[in-house]
């Protein structure tokens, strides 16, 4: 359950990070690959080493999708419909991995924003990422 204040905070954070979407997204992914090696199995067809164009492009897509979704959280099911279909029928990434990436995204945000990533911002963002992941997995079965 997100309060209006929390929704605003989430929008502000993603607005602030959109210019560095590639950097943040790639950082979160690299952290996930380092901490949870099983997650790498979904990317065996790509070069996901630090600095690779694949990694940067993927990272950017993810952050931009998170930013877009945050603009109207009540409409997540509509905004994410194409991504829902892609993840359910094409990518078929086990949803446990969404939690792993969410955690690594929070760590990436903390490293980047440092003291600005307050407990309140952390709580709001954790809730948003959980909601996002839940919607993403909705069409799996």
């Amino acid at each position: 359950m997100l309060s209006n204040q929390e929704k605003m905070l989430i929008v502000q954070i993603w607005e602030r990070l959109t210019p560095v979407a590639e950097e943040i997204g790639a950082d979160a992914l690299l952290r996930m690959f380092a901490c949870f090696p099983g997650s790498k199995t979904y990317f065996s067809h790509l070069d996901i080493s630090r600095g690779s164009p694949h990694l940067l492009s993927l990272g950017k897509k993810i952050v931009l999708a998170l930013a877009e979704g945050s603009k109207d959280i009540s409409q997540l099911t509509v905004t994410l419909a194409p991504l829902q279909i892609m993840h359910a029928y094409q990518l078929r990434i086990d949803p446990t991995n969404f939690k792993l990436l969410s955690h690594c995204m929070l760590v990436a945000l903390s490293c980047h924003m440092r003291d600005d990533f307050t407990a309140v911002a952390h709580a709001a963002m954790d809730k948003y990422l959980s909601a996002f992941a839940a919607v993403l997995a909705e069409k799996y079965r």
Partner: protein
Amino acid sequence: MVEWTDFERATIKDIFSKIEYDVVGPATLARCLVVYPWTQRYFGKFGNLYNAAGIAENAMVSKHGITILHGLDRAVKNMDDIKNTYAELSVLHSEKLHVDPDNFKLLADCLTIVVAARFGNGFTGEVQAAFQKFMAVVVSSLGKQYH
């Protein structure tokens, strides 16, 4: 037995030698109580936990946060036998404090994020992996004596 690489050992010692316990401890416990409010169930006697500001200013939370963080010192010093190092603490958390062991992971995640903020870009993916592996062993050991 847990196998630690030289990098992992060095990383853990390095992190714990550099963090300010009286900042990181309080910040971590406070963050846990804010991000996972149901954890407040264990702190009924701590007074004002009504909002983030109240939690951040709460002297009992700060003091307890420091206690918890220092509790990790023994694991840092005994990385090769964390399970036995924490046997007694595990019994305490189970029999006396009745803490659901799932909460240990929540606190560990909050600690990771607080440490990340302290170190910024120095908290690389590899450092994070080592830190999370250490905390996972701590969490597992604390839950070991539950029955």
